[in-house]
């Protein structure tokens, strides 16, 4: 018991120091008088003599806690913190948020997400952009709707569940704070005899708050107001509304929590003034402020000053300055109509629209060598852009469009040689000549394309287009002056003779999609006209352009 008294003394000292209240002997005498309860003693004795009971575990600790409760009550009664109008202003500023949060929680609990047509439209556009919207089928719609519903519902619930959880947590915190404020009220009431402060004014304010809250049985919500109010005040560096601004010692929130943990779940419990603290003779004994901390020492020094201030502040009657919160009391038995009261929304099936696609393609392969009666392969490369348009209805499996590209044709040993003899009047002859070897030809191609979709990945393509010669690279040697030597020009781009400038080409291709934007293709094409200028090349062969290439295609853009 001595150990317990010693502990209690220490705790009280700590509490006293934190409250910047000087411990006076009177406090202990009051506490001692309260603890001198003959009836309780008698009851204990009777119980001890008649029954055997198992002492609860941590009895000492429980007792200490009980002492702590009373110590806190005493301390809170002796602590008077004036109310500043700024606190109310701040509360009013945040009131809308507080009410909004309450409304959201109520809505979250009452409302259920349902399918909305706009969700489908947005999903439809997204699907088309991703290239997944190939063919409209009823199953797609249903499946998409299910997917959307599922996705949206999960999103909605996750989102609002999170909000609800947060709000619940805040509500619970508010309950706790509400309980704390109630106990504070009780402590103030209990300690009112020890101080000359007019704690009744603050008490009256707190009581008014509790009257409003008592009508709401949702502990979380009701205490939320109190908690916020208290919490806001707790976070207010200028000081809580229940303590002077220069009072560094306070009943901390943690300590309040400890008090709550003893089963005080509602302001009513607090207001009931249940007091579980026993055998506490002095508030100092239940003070748990560390008496050795420098801060405590400083606080203790200030306590006497503050105490006098508390007494002075307590004498201030702010009841005329207080205004009642314009809160709307909701009867506890009222039924909130949470049904949807907006305009009726008609759900219509989304209208399918044709799409346009833009691609980049590149291919490589081989083709025939000009000027040869037999097929000798030579290199082919090409690339360009493609546009296709996909419609719906009967032509939904067809694509119509066009391509614009460049084709490169490699040729070797395709050329000509020309010699000219010029006779002069002196009986002599000058021979002039050139030799031309065409190496590379570059054509631009414009084609109309028709594609037929075999399935959602594969399609075949037909094309008809025109080739126009733009560049030719060649090697050339010549002598065209009697007094000049032989001139050789390699990798020359200035000669286009010998090759036909225009050709008409037919194409057949196969394409398979291998990703969201990529596809492989294999193409073959056949030119209708003779690519070689027989008058220049003196070539007796009819040189059709024939080639087979493979390549890739990249989807740049899809637009509905």
């Amino acid at each position, binding site marked *: 018991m001595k150990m317990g008294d010693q502990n209690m003394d220490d705790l009280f000292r700590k509490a006293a120091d934190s409250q910047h209240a000087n411990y006076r002997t009177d406090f202990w005498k009051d506490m001692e008088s309260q603890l001198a309860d003959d009836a309780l003693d008698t009851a204990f004795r009777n119980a001890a003599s008649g029954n055997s009971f198992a002492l609860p575990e941590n009895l000492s600790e429980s007792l200490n806690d009980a002492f702590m409760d009373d110590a806190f009550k005493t301390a809170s009664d002796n602590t008077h913190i004036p109310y500043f109008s700024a606190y109310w202003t701040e509360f009013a500023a945040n009131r809308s948020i507080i009410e909004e949060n309450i409304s959201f929680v109520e809505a979250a609990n009452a409302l259920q997400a349902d399918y909305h047509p706009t969700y489908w439209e947005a999903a439809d556009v997204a699907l088309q952009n991703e290239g997944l919207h190939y063919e409209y089928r009823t199953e797609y719609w249903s499946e998409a709707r299910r997917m959307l519903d599922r996705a949206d519902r999960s999103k909605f619930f996750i989102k609002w569940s999170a909000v609800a959880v947060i709000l619940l947590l805040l509500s619970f915190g508010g309950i706790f704070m509400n309980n704390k404020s109630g106990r504070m009220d009780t402590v103030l009431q209990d300690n009112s005899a020890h101080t000359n402060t007019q704690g009744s004014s603050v008490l009256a304010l707190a009581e008014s708050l509790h009257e409003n809250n008592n009508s709401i049985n949702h502990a979380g919500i009701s205490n939320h107001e109190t908690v916020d109010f208290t919490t806001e005040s707790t976070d207010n560096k200028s000081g809580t509304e229940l303590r002077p601004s220069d009072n560094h010692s306070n009943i901390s929130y943690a300590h309040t929590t400890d008090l709550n943990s003893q089963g005080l779940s509602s302001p009513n419990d607090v207001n009931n003034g249940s007091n579980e603290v026993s055998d506490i003779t002095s508030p100092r004994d239940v003070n748990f402020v560390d008496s050795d901390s420098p801060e405590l020492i400083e606080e203790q020094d200030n306590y006497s000053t503050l105490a006098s201030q508390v007494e002075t502040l307590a004498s201030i009657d702010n009841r005329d300055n207080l205004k009642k919160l314009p809160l709307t009391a909701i009867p506890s038995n009222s039924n909130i109509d949470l049904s949807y009261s907006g305009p009726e929304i008609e759900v219509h099936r989304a209208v399918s629209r044709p799409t346009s696609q833009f691609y980049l393609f590149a291919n490589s392969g081989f083709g025939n060598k000009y000027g040869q009666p037999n097929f000798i392969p030579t290199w082919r490369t090409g690339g360009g852009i493609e546009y296709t348009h996909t419609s719906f209805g009967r032509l939904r499996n067809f694509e119509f469009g066009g391509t614009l590209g460049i084709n490169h044709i490699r040729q070797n040993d395709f050329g000509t040689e*020309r010699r*000219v*003899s*010029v*006779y*002069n*009047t*002196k*009986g*002599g*002859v*000058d021979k*002039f*000549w*050139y030799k*031309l070897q065409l190496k590379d030809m570059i054509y631009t191609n414009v084609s109309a394309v028709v594609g037929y979709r075999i399935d959602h990945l594969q399609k075949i393509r037909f094309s008809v287009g025109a080739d126009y010669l733009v560049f030719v690279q060649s090697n*050339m040697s*010549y002598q*065209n002056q009697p007094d000049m030597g032989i*001139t050789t*020009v390699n*990798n*020359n*781009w*200035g*000669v286009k*003779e010998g090759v036909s400038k225009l050709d008409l080409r037919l194409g057949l291709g196969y394409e398979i999609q291998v990703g969201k934007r990529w596809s492989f293709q294999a193409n073959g094409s056949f030119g209708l006209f003779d690519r070689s200028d027989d008058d220049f090349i003196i070539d007796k062969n009819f040189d059709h352009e024939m080639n087979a290439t493979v390549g890739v295609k990249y989807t740049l853009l899809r637009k509905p």
Partner: protein
Amino acid sequence: MKLHSITYFTLTVFASVFITSCKKEKLPDLPPENDPYYSVRGLVNGDSISWNVGENSVTLSYGADNFNKIESYYGQINNTTDDQTIRIEVLRPEIFASTSGISSVEQGQIPLLTNKSGAIKLNFGISYGQFNYVLVKDDESNNFAQMNEIDFKEYGVHDLTLKFTDYSPSESFTLPVKFGFENQVLKAGFTSNGSGDTLNVLAENTDGSHQWYLNNVLVSEESGFSKHLEDGIYKLKHVLTDAFGNSADYTTLIRFKEGHFYWQMKYYYIDQPACTSHYGNIIVSMKKDGVWYSTLHAAQNENSFLTTSNIVTELNNNLKPVSTRFNFDFGTVLYTADQTDSLVLSSFTGKINVGFN
């Protein structure tokens, strides 16, 4: 800058660099082709030939030559592969220039020159006795002998060397004698007499400009002159030049004896040929298998012709003819000099260029 903007800019830069910096030389223009200027084709003893100068090692050579001291202009197409040559030689015309211009080759039918022998006889005027003291040098034997007739085997200008034994047993006199090339248009010649020991000379054609050479010394440029001469035999040459630069000359001997004019030597054809002037005639020759065949040696070509056309003469800066090209066609027989072999050239046509330098 967004990635696609960078890509487009890069592609534009690459395309611009490619277009502007790559070599772009056009196919060279070759001169227009033409046909060979000179050619000859025909049948040689029935074998066809077709030679184009500048092809297959067929070449052309041309220039000036002389036929027995008669200036000639030739063109020669050589087939070095077969070692055959066709030569067309044009004897100088009597008149080059006239009011109608330069006429180096006449257009139309030009007779082919065929050698024909002939003889001349000397004439000393009234000094008939001179014949007894004249010795003529034989060109083959180089011996002097007394001859009543002087024979020439070929047309041309021949050097006649004479000795006059009553004047000097050793001194000889050589003078050119034209055989078959009598001037018909521009005639040089003179008559002479003496007044005591003075020679008086007068040109037969006084038009034009005259040069008188007495023993190769210019003594006068008048149409006539008089000069004191001592006793002796003198060679007098008259050169006549007309206003177009055409010239002709005539050379003979003059003797003064015992202080007075004795004689002016003249010569005459014994058998006047039908044609005494062969200026501008054409000689066709062909070398085949290393042997030359020529129209000169074929008497049957006496009335043969070579037809010329499209005659173009090139002049130098001094307006002197440099060369003349013309189309020809002919048919003739060519003989070797000893007339042991012949070539029949038939249906020969072509174009040739003859030179004057």
